[in-house]
């Protein structure tokens, strides 16, 4: 037991690792996750629209893409994008490992987010589309003005969950190689663990992840509740006793 505390939960070593974890790790992790999420939302929405299209020609590529990128382990996709593309001579980002990593995570996120959007769009009552078409809107216009706006509100909770998942997956970019300065949270913890011969800095890295993910998880729950129950159902606070007597 003592050994476990010493090797994994050594407070001194955790504190010692924290500044670097926050300064370098947290920043890079956020840059990676936000970047990947932006790619995922943009491409994912496009893919979702293809997926619900009535044209097979559009549906099929979307289906194949989603199947492949959801079905592969993230670490494999990262290696394929980060090492495979440059090997094939495709070098949109020169040698920036971080950029390839963000692209890889973004492509993976695209598949998941496409599914989230598809579910959101399909959850909008059919009558909405029918009504919009009946007043003379085109399919695309009805999608843009009526269906998608309603669908998107409903997908905010799962989207936030996806962001959390991406944040955690960002630790996998290590396989592409890292230099001092471009390490994300987990890698910073790992380096410190190597230097100290103790696992505690990695546990410290875990704490920093929780710093991001717990508030977000709360946010998901809040959004979820709001969507189900409507806005601000909280009653006005009762006047306090002081106010009443005062």
């Amino acid at each position, binding site marked *: 037991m003592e050994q476990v505390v010493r090797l994994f939960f050594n407070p001194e070593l955790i504190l010692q690792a924290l500044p670097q974890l926050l300064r370098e790790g947290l920043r890079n992790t956020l840059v990676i996750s936000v970047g990947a999420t932006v790619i995922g939302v943009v491409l994912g929405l496009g893919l979702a629209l293809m997926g619900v299209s009535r044209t097979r020609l559009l549906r099929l590529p979307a289906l194949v893409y989603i199947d492949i990128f959801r079905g592969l382990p993230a670490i494999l996709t990262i290696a394929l994008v980060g090492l495979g593309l440059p090997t094939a001579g495709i070098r949109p980002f020169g040698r920036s490992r971080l950029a390839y990593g963000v692209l890889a995570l973004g492509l993976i996120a695209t598949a998941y987010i496409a599914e989230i959007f598809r579910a959101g769009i399909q959850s909008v009552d059919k009558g909405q589309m029918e009504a919009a078409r009946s007043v003379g809107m085109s399919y695309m216009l009805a999608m843009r003005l009526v269906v998608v706006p309603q669908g998107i509100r409903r997908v905010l909770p799962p989207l936030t969950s996806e962001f959390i998942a991406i944040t955690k997956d960002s630790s996998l970019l290590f396989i592409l190689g890292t230099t001092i300065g471009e390490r994300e949270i987990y890698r910073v913890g790992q380096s410190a663990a190597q*230097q100290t*011969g103790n696992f505690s800095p990695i546990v410290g890295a875990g704490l920093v992840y929780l710093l991001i993910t717990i508030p977000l998880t709360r946010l998901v729950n809040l959004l979820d509740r709001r969507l189900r129950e409507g806005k601000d159902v909280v009653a006005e606070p009762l006047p306090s006793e002081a106010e009443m007597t005062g």
Partner: protein
Amino acid sequence: MWRATGAHAAVGGRSGAAGSSTMRPAPSRFSEALGAAAAERDTVKTVNRTLVAVLALLAVLGAACGGEPATETTTATDGPAPTETTGAGATEPMSTEELGLLEGDRLVVGSDIAFAPFESVQDGENVGFDIDLVKEISSRLGLGEPEFVNASFDTIFTQLAAGDFDMIASAITITEERDQTIDFSDPYFLASQALAVPEGSDIEGVGDIEGKQIAVQAGTTGFEYAQENFGDQATIVEFPTSEAAFTALRSGQVDGVFIDIPVVNEQVESGGVELAEEVDTGEEYGFGFQTDDDALTDAVNTALDEIIADGTYEEIFTEYFPNAEVPEQFQAQG
């Protein structure tokens, strides 16, 4: 060589290639070992094993976050048949109980099995110089087939200290720093570092790396050396495994790899890579043991002496390094 940095602990692990024959879920293996170690230490059998297991599980999950398997258990199933020594120098095999092994009659050996030619998985089998040497040692001690547990170099020293393995054999350079936290066997291999570059590169040695990107394996002594000696001229890029570093080299993402010379030679043979310069760092590999495990450390040293003295070392060495000469200290005597 490699693995390195610091004290014992951790190095950027090489992710284990999977092909293992028998696998046990990591958490149970880990907690089992931890639990056993804890119980032994306290002699209080009422140690809260559940708590230990939960903490261990947390730790394993933490490691798993890195995307690398925390531990994979692989049982070696083949390799050279154990050779019994009858030589004059042979010592009485120790009673296996005296060794206090985790599993009684066989060694549980931690290794980052992605470092050819020392340890790698080929066709589902663990192969390599370290693997064969440990098997030989194991048979000299009268033990069964050793169990090789594929562990990330990041955590291998911590896991040893936590009582997860009887020993670690992973091309580990003996360093003073590490020696403070674990015990080493006598040296069993001499190695230096080397700079590998793509074929046709204009880098001819470590003097030409100004402004270049040089890959290293995280936590290795090669990483430390590179950081210290050319960290200010070149960009040092850390990779979790030697394999990842060489893939990056072949894909043109880095200009060179600085790593143990036997690994460079192995890669040169696979093609596309050439040796630019050898840097004599005079490193020695040793097996690692828990600090209080003198019985096993001594037994392994004795077996190692025998293996060297009767020429078995040379046989294994020649199998993996056919073009190299056996260093004098490892040649058979008489």
